[in-house]
């Protein structure tokens, strides 16, 4: 296996995505909303609104039932905090976590759809199939193009989010409190698994659709389980503890392995050329 070839294909695919504004604009706007706009609105907003401390404490008291369902390590983070402090920790440290997973999913499925389906749509695949690159090198090149930037941008978004959350909440918290311990498995274990899932799904979908938009919309369905995760967490049905994150990541990696196995089996020159 020649890594020069794999990287050449990956770089080519990323250049193609860069040239397609329709693909990268939403993929860039979503992280920007999650990382900068929403935390600022929800952390700085309440600080600017003149809500009396007693009222806020009363409102937060209504969330007791949910707070009782929180994992012990998160409860430990909240213990001893007051009104707006609890709001910030719950929201930025807890509720946003599943939303954060949308970033790797979206990025990987955009690049995956562009690279696997877009290539066929623009009729550029045939020339690539006539090169000496092996099926595996072509496949890996496209996998690298979809997964590596998605994971890197997720990590970068995480760093930016850490900065935004700590700086904007500093007047209330009075200390650097983020990231919470549950975020490490989320970012380092679950997010790469989700990125791989987005890519693997676009590979499998690519054989059934004919345009980039169709593929992208189909992979968008994967956001639904993430929304369930968020709702489950709000309702107290699921608690995103470290153990839960590790388990969730393990399951997603398992699904990835199966999907990638099917993807590799499907990514054969003879199959690809027959679908041109």
């Amino acid at each position, binding site marked *: 296996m020649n890594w020069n070839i794999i990287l050449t294909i990956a770089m080519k695919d990323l250049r193609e995505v860069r040239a397609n504004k329709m693909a990268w604009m939403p993929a860039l706007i979503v992280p920007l909303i999650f990382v900068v706009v929403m935390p600022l609105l929800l952390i700085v907003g309440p600080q600017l609104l003149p809500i009396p401390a007693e009222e806020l404490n009363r409102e937060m008291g209504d969330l007791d039932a949910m707070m009782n369902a929180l994992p012990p390590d998160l409860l430990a983070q909240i213990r001893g905090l007051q009104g707006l402090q609890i709001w910030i920790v719950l929201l930025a440290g807890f509720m946003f976590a599943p939303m954060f997973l949308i970033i790797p999913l979206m990025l990987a499925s955009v690049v995956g759809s562009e690279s696997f389906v877009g290539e066929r749509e623009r009729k550029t695949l045939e020339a690539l199939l*006539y090169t000496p690159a092996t099926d595996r090198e072509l496949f890996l090149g496209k996998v690298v193009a979809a997964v590596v930037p998605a994971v890197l941008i997720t990590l970068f978004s995480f760093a930016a989010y850490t900065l935004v959350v700590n700086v904007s909440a500093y007047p209330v918290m009075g200390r650097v409190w983020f990231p919470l311990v549950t975020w490490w498995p989320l970012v380092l274990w679950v997010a790469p698994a989700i990125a791989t899932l987005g890519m693997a799904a676009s590979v499998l979908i690519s054989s059934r659709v004919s345009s980039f938009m169709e593929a992208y919309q189909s992979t968008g369905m994967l956001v639904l389980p993430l929304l369930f995760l968020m709702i489950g967490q709000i309702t107290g049905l699921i608690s995103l503890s470290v153990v839960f994150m590790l388990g969730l990541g393990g399951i997603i990696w398992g699904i990835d392995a199966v999907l990638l196995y099917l993807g590799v089996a499907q990514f054969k020159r003879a199959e690809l050329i027959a679908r041109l």
Partner: protein
Amino acid sequence: MSAVIECDSVVKQFGALKAIDGLTFSVEAGEVFGMLGPNGAGKTTMVRLINGLLAASGGRLRTLGFDPITQGDRVRAHTGVLTETPSLYERFSARDNLLLFGRLYHVAPEKLTGRVDAVLRDLGLAERARDKVGGYSKGMKQRLAIARALLHEPQILFLDEPTAGLDPEAARHVTDLIEKLSREGGRTVLLATHNLTEAQRLCDRVAVLNQGRALAVGTPAQLSRDLWRSTWLDVELRGVNGGAPTDRLLAQVRAVPMVKAAAMEGHSLSLQVESEEAIPQMVAHLVRLGAQIVRVNPREHTLEEIYFALQEQAEKAV
């Protein structure tokens, strides 16, 4: 000369459809070989089989001595293919397209930019090398696709319908280019086309295909001989025994055993003889009869006549 492509009873089946049905031919090093046939005859499928993009369902196939199924990457390292659609990255410049494919074809990094510049220059694209390919005309895209196929200096160049969809001027430019490429440096060229004028001009040997089968393989002259088993001669005469050509001469010619048919119009005598080998004897005979010969032209069948005669035969046989 040695065979660089060997196809022996090759079969390719897609479900119930037999796209290639026992095709046998070989291509010698340095020749321009044409695969002629209507759409659906199996030309593109053969290019894909020879390059290991598809696996044959039966028969034996070797390209440069390699098995395209198990050694496809090695085959493709030594072949360059101009596909039916140019298959170019239109959002990239011509130069970037070539740099990308140069890397994929393992052109040495220190040679790559020089090689890219050279092919761009050779194909008349140097001035617009940095423009995005999306803004190119069809003819320019086709030339760039040829440049891409030549970039790694392949031993065999495959050209699949190289002038399809081009206006006559662009088509002529591309054909001139292919002729130049095939005559320079003894490169082997396999031309898949249904453009018979193009094939007539370029090909040393051809295989005429129909529904995945070879109707005939050989040089146009061989195919013509096999089809008609006789040769027409056009003889221009100044006169006979000092006078004008007469019906008497025509009658004497018709009486010669090797002559199958003859006609005369003014000073032009048309003769059908058994074979090309009979021509010198026939000329000697005419001289003995007192004919003063100005010019003798063996009438050659065009590839178009050969092609249609073969296709008609095939249709009658069904």
